[in-house]
């Protein structure tokens, strides 16, 4: 089912000041996509999720799920969470400690007054689906963190909702388990016709899982797109910075040429991805460290920008060297393949693709 959100606002009062947790959010999530709300804590992503599920009431705007309006300030509609027919995995998993694994998962079916035999069948299927067979009778809180997470997922899925919501579900797992669970989660959801809305502050999770990412700041959606779009073609400094590491260099827009925009920086003139910025305006040039390539050739390859600099610091971090390279007055962070023989103090030549040089206003 698709989800449509229009002009959603939610205000909180703290210390007498009113703060907008959600500030006129407009959003349309197509059916059967994996949609992620990404942002730092306090950006409003969890509030947005809780408004969609109905645990929080917004102050203005409208939410509809699958064409049905579930909340509207104008029309005075509020469908309570239990009537929205959604599934949700909580950050704490919210496994009920007084119930067995079976009862936890059967609960959504029991409250729908389903036939006992059918419930057993569906719970068994859900347990098989999350690969947790044989623990039905165990007390749910006696399971490990990863297993509890699967119980929470099975419970969210058992009633076959068309939309499932996740509130930072992996944040309580340790790093290794988090990676495994992440892959599994995507595999599980790929098998179902379901719309997933996922809240996280972890950019890697967002990039790895999502069809679409919306980056949020201060109650607003700053930018939205596919993971590749957001990573390679960010339009805001805030987004470029949040989604990965980036060199940020002050620049002035010179002129536009065939498919590129030229910008003047402390390192000289740099060819950048074309952006419609007025000539003479100030901007930030953003280059990700992995797109600065060390080259032995004197001239840059066709269409690329050549730079020369001195390696000021070199750090071996395993899969790559991280180098700090001084180019004219600027310093660039670059990631260098371990098989390229460089040493601190070396002068190196670099080539940069204009497609990976982003000019960002503000």
């Amino acid at each position, binding site marked *: 089912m698709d989800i449509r959100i229009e002009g959603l606002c939610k205000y909180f009062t703290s210390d007498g000041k009113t703060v907008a947790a959600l500030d006129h959010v407009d959003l349309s999530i197509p059916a059967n996509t994996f949609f992620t709300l990404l942002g730092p804590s306090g950006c409003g992503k969890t509030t947005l999720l809780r408004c969609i599920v109905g645990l929080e009431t917004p102050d203005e705007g409208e939410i509809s799920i699958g064409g049905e309006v579930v909340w509207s300030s104008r029309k005075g509609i509020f469908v*309570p*969470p*239990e009537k929205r027919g959604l599934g949700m995995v909580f950050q*704490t998993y919210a496994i*009920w400690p007084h119930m067995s694994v079976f009862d936890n998962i059967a609960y959504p079916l029991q*409250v729908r007054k389903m036939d006992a035999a059918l419930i057993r069948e569906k719970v068994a299927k859900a347990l098989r689906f999350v690969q947790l067979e044989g623990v039905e009778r165990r*007390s749910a*809180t006696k399971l490990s963190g990863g297993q509890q997470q699967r119980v929470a997922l099975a*419970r969210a899925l058992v009633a076959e909702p068309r939309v499932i919501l996740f509130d930072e579900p992996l944040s309580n797992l340790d790093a290794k388990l988090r990676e495994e669970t992440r892959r599994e989660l995507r595999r599980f959801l790929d098998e179902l016709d379901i719309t997933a809305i996922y809240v996280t502050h972890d950019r890697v999770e967002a990039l790895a899982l999502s069809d679409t990412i919306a980056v949020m700041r201060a109650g607003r959606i700053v930018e939205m797109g596919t993971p590749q779009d957001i990573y390679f073609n960010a339009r805001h400094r805030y987004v470029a910075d949040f989604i990965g590491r980036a060199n940020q260099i002050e620049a002035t827009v010179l002129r536009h040429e065939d498919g590129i925009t030229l910008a003047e920086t402390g390192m000289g003139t740099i060819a950048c991805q074309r952006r419609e910025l007025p000539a003479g305006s100030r901007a930030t040039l953003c280059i990700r460290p992995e797109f600065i390539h060390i080259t032995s050739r004197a001239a840059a390859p066709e269409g690329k920008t050549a730079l020369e600099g001195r390696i000021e610091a070199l750090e071996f971090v395993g899969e790559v060297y991280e180098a700090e390279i001084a180019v004219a007055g600027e310093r660039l962070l670059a990631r260098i393949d371990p098989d390229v023989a460089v040493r601190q103090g070396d002068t190196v030549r670099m080539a940069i693709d204009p497609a990976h040089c982003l000019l960002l206003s503000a």
Partner: protein
Amino acid sequence: MTRTRAQLVWLLIAIVGFLTLCPVLMLLAGSFSQGLTAFGAFTAHKYVAAYTDPALAGVIVNTLVFVLGASLFSTVLAIFLSYLNTRTNIPWKGAFTLLSIVPMMIPHLLFAISWALLLNPSNGLMNLVLRGAFGLEQSPINIYSIGGMIFVEGLLNLPIAYLVIAPAMGAFDVSLEESSRVSGAGTLTTLRRITLPILRPAILAAFTLCVVRALASYAVPRALGTPGRVDVLATYLYEMISTGFAPDYGQAAALGMSVLSASILLIVLYRALTAEGGKFVTISSRGFKPAIIDLKGARLPLFVVVALLCLLMIVIPVGALFYTSLLPYSMVPGARALALMSWQNWIEMVHDDITMRALQNSLILAIVGASLGVLLSLFAAYVTVKLRTKAAGLLEMLTFLSFSFPGIVIGIGFMWFFVQTPLYATLTAMMLAYIAAYLPYGVRPLTSAFVQVHAHLEESSQVCGAPPLTTMRRIVAPLVLPGIVSAWILMATMFIRELSVSVVLSRPGSEVLAVRILNFADDGLWGKLSALGIVMILLSTGMVLAATYAGRKFKRH
């Protein structure tokens, strides 16, 4: 939805506010009025009378010595025991848990009386034995003294201090001590320079709580102080309203205001201390077990000390009561005593109408009172935990304040109120006063029960499609049930033994067990008293065991 919630909160504040503030305001009004039945014109006369009484100075000195002495005794002993239990390899650690729940099982009045049976100067059992053994003319120990009172009250408040200090010591980040050891300090220097200073907030909090309890204590001063003519404020207040032909409630109210103010001040201090306590004690999240200190050669002697304490707190008092209940009068254990032993006192007790009525009244008060009290506590706890509004904060403060109220002062306050109403001298009046005085005992376990029910547990039920009532029935109620059971049993245990409120409000027809025990003590009927005391101890112990069992049963999931 929010509207009905707000209404519920204000209704609760009205009920709780009435219960806590009514006795206080009536006490205040009473202290400025002319007499109990007719308030009359405003007068400060009672204050002048109360505070210029030449006897008062002596009473205050006694009170200070008694309260500070007993609290110091409890706190030092509690530090010692907490350290042994949480930080050393002392054997048989179950004894510590047992020690901490004893006062729940043995009512304070009976504990004090049993020590009177053992160590009173004329025919205390232990004194008789010592006189015989050493050929002494006089009894070597007189429990009817300020020292005796300090000893008994100190033992009674020991568990309170222990329950505050032991968790703090157990949660202590050991690396703080380890770095002291690495720096070259020995075990004792580390204890003195690092451990105790860091635990200072917890220790001060324990001490303050003991002071509040000792100041409110009526049982010990009445059982041990009154026979030895050592008056403290609690007994002095009671004498004002009981002795002579003209009990002076006005003067008692005037003096009671000071006691009440001191108690409130102390409980506010306690709260500030425990709030600060969080800053000091750091709980290590790494899951390290504290390094256990090997006591080596001191292990056995220290264990003997703990065992002796168990003996002093459980075996000897209960033993003395049971022994006395079988004898016609006090005598040294021996062949003659054995020959005279019978169930006579027990049989007479069963046939005594007033005693049976007291038993019946106490049971009614415990069962009905605890049920109503828990119902009120349930709503109050839910509101304070789940709704974080200003009104909810007010409610929390009200329930907390009443924790400090000395029973006898609350009783006097309520007396001013009930005497104007048809409720005077009824069980209903006593029940209201009981609930007011012991509300925190119901609210506290329920508050912690609600705190444990994470909001997500309710929300996920809602998202699963359960309507609010189903969520209440299937998720919240089962999770809070252990809290409800323990709150009910705690309140019922308190009501079964209640003394200090009852002693003011009880009238012929509304006798209760503790007041009946006092009657027996006044008449010197030690045998009957002991028999009834054993019944009370059995009732309390049964309830505490039931609570422990219920707690275990529910904890399993």
